[in-house]
């Protein structure tokens, strides 16, 4: 049965906070014009979820085609568009906006700020995102189809062998970048400038710390991505030869510039997850987080190292041996701070009085499965081994463990953890558990066997495969369809929660929860901390 702590309803709404409530604007215009960090957080989260379902539908197309060897459902060019747009949507449309949504909801409440530092810009950075994806998705219907060169848009695939819709791809990536940069500037400034008196840096919740560092990474690397797409645009349309040897350029240069953005980008998608897990594990262990300071330093170390490891994506592309060695060892170094984190989570649980509510189940699954993804990453970091693994399904397995059972599971954990605070009602726990178990089993059926076909040499991004991979691919596809369907349970649960169906919860919601956001009423009033609290 349920182990959740559902305390009695707290009727603080009609107390001192009531006079804020009548300010809440109504209707569609509320969402278009809003400057409220909670509204914008909600918009980001819904947008991310819709994109997750669209990107997921594309993954279903991919898995349907790969269900059997041979070409049967879609043609290869369309298959390439699906792998490309699936990746772009999941990275820029699902995971990143979901984390930004969580930051919007939580950072001001966690540091005792009245709102984000720059509320109008906050609205702008959200609302340009749907337009960016509208452009990207509509380019699929253009002559010659949409982008089909993989989400990494390597030259010369994107510069010489791509359709004209590449121009629209470039400008939609520009808008995604502008959105991310503005969102990140907002987060950094909020954290540096809006903390309540007494909220010193080393008292900040780890979610705030990890987002501070993530936002720094975003501001540093998103402009480099803008530079890369700009060079692709001029190479394709205006005769430049940045990525063309005939004019003195080099296609490998594209990979260097792209991965200088791309590697910090993968930490952008996992550091906030670390912050989430560091909030959830202590709550349901009923202990303080083990090694708070080391968590902060580990996060900063990972971020700094992320700038000097990019070429481990390019071991087979060609580099001097000394460079391969450097990037191999630098990459392996990242396992040290990451290991510190995993150790600290386990040490937090050690001898805690554990309970297994839905967010905690996702958090524990995260720790185990993210570690699997981390370990396969360590294998890939070894240069000579990578020569074998490169561009096989082993890589696909690796980054889906890190991004799906890592980033996506952490986002789900976060939603389950803070949802009662947002709505004031406990979500449907039975559905939550169904969602967890279905997701957990199917996601492993989906991604774990990919390691095996990958090690055996099955290449990624190809719509057909050799016969010996048929059995495993069948099971992988079944896992994929099951994982996709499992997310519909989540959709139902979220809709019920948004319609405020469920038991009222207390201010603290979870018995062991600590932090400013658990001291304000549930549901969180429209405006919080208009005068800052004093943190002792």
């Amino acid at each position, binding site marked *: 049965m349920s182990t959740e702590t559902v305390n009695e309803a707290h009727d603080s709404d009609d107390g001192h906070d009531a006079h804020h409530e009548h300010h809440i*604007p109504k209707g569609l215009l509320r969402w278009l*014009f*809003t*400057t409220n960090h909670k509204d914008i957080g909600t918009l980001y989260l819904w947008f991310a979820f819709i994109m997750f379902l669209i990107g997921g539908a594309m993954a279903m197309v991919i898995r349907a085609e790969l269900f059997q060897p041979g070409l049967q459902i879609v043609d290869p060019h369309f298959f390439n568009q699906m792998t490309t747009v699936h990746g772009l949507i999941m990275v820029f449309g699902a995971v990143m906006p979901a984390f930004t949504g969580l930051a919007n909801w939580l950072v001001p409440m966690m540091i005792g700020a*009245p*709102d984000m530092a*720059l*509320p*109008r*810009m906050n*609205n*702008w950075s959200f*609302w*340009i995102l749907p*337009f*960016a994806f*509208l*452009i990207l998705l509509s380019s699929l219907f253009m002559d010659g189809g949409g982008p089909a060169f993989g989400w990494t848009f390597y030259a010369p695939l994107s510069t010489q062998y791509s359709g*004209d819709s590449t*121009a*629209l791809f*470039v*400008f*939609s990536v520009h*808008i995604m970048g*502008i959105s991310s*940069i503005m969102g*990140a*500037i*907002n987060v950094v*400034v909020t954290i*540096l*400038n*809006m903390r309540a*008196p007494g909220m010193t840096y080393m008292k900040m919740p780890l979610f705030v710390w990890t987002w501070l560092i993530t936002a720094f990474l975003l*501001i540093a690397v998103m*402009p*480099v991505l803008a*530079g*890369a797409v*700009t*060079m692709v645009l*001029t190479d394709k*349309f*205006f*005769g*430049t*030869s*940045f990525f063309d040897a005939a*004019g*003195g*350029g*080099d296609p*490998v*240069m594209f990979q260097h*510039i792209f991965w200088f953005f791309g590697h910090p980008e993968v930490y952008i998608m996992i550091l906030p997850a670390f912050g989430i897990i560091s909030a959830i594990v202590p709550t349901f262990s009923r202990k303080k987080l083990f090694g708070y300071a080391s968590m902060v330093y580990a996060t900063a170390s990972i971020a700094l190292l992320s700038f000097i490891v990019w070429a481990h994506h390019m071991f087979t592309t060609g580099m*001097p041996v000394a460079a391969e060695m450097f990037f191999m060892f630098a990459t392996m170094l990242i396992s040290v701070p990451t290991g510190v984190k995993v150790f600290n989570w386990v040490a937090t649980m050690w001898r805690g009085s554990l309970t297994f509510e839905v967010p905690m189940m996702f958090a524990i699954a995260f720790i185990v499965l993210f570690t699997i993804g981390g370990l396969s990453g360590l294998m890939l970091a070894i240069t000579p081994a990578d020569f074998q693994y490169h561009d096989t399904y082993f890589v696909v397995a690796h980054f889906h463990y890190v991004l799906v059972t890592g980033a996506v599971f952490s986002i789900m954990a976060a939603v389950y953890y803070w949802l009662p605070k947002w709505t004031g009602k406990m979500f449907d726990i039975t559905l939550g558990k169904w969602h967890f178990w279905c997701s957990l089993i199917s996601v492993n059926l989906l991604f774990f066997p990919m390691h095996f076909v990958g090690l055996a040499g099955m290449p990624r991004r190809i719509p057909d495969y050799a016969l010996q991979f048929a059995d495993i691919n069948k099971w992988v596809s079944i896992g994929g369809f099951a994982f996709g369907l499992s997310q519909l349970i989540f959709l139902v649960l979220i809709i019920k929660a948004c319609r405020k169906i469920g038991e009222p919860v207390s201010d603290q919601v979870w018995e062991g929860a600590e932090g400013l956001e658990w001291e304000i009423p549930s549901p969180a009033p429209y405006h919080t901390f208009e*005068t*800052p609290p*004093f943190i002792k």
Partner: protein
Amino acid sequence: MAQEQYEKYYVPEQSIWPIIGAVALFLIAVGAGNFVIETTRDKSGYGFYILMAGFALLLVMLVGWFRNQIEESMRGLYSAQLSRSYRQGMAWFIFSEVMFFAAFFGALFYARTISIPWLGGASNNASTNDVLWNGFQATWPLLTTPADAITTGEASTQAMPWTGLPLYNTALLLASSVTLHYAHVGLEQVKRKQLMWLLGATIVLGSIFVVLQVQEYIHAYVDLGLKLDSGVYGNTFFLLTGFHGMHVTLGTIILIVLFFRCWKGHFTPKEHFAFQAGSWYWHFVDVVWVMLFFFVYIL
């Protein structure tokens, strides 16, 4: 204690401008994408008009948004903390701009130190040179591209010298940073004449820079044969100086707006975030030029 002196942080009510800005960026992206396809592929379409509509709407949005902010600021709604938010926001924005230019400088350095020497046979690439680009010699500026080397065997362009226009432009921009700094000092010390004259001088210097830059481009295209598609030398030259020139143009427009705001007496010696931000932006653009002058023109 701390709470008693707390000045309320101004959180604006709902605003119509961001969504207008979002539509504007949408039009700009769709317009620019289609415009690029239509001009380079000789197709007809509405890309250009959509792009211009986007810019027009963006202009409307900027005017409306800034007007709101100026009103709020003049009404004294902005606390010192909010002012700090703006300053920090601007500083981080400039950092993101630095990283944008870093991508193109990175391409320049990569081409000069890695791709061109390797195409010329350096490192372990002797056979690349021999088989694919026979006769190509690694030089910088790259006047004879690998493609030239195996076809005509002659240089397709001439190099842009650093003397002449580029040197004048360097002097102009460095001088403009100095004039802007002393205009700022004039604002802080309530010396109105100094502020207005030096700010005006900065605008004039910036405008002359842009005009000279256009002349330099004409010189490059007509006299030197140095074009955007003249291999990686022309690519980096035009993209770096082009993006820089766009920034100078934008900076000059910002300074012109600031000039009129100073004229109206919007700023006080203590509170003048907009002036500060415009000034930071101008100095940043200046620093980028100094980098450009060294790495694109001289070295």
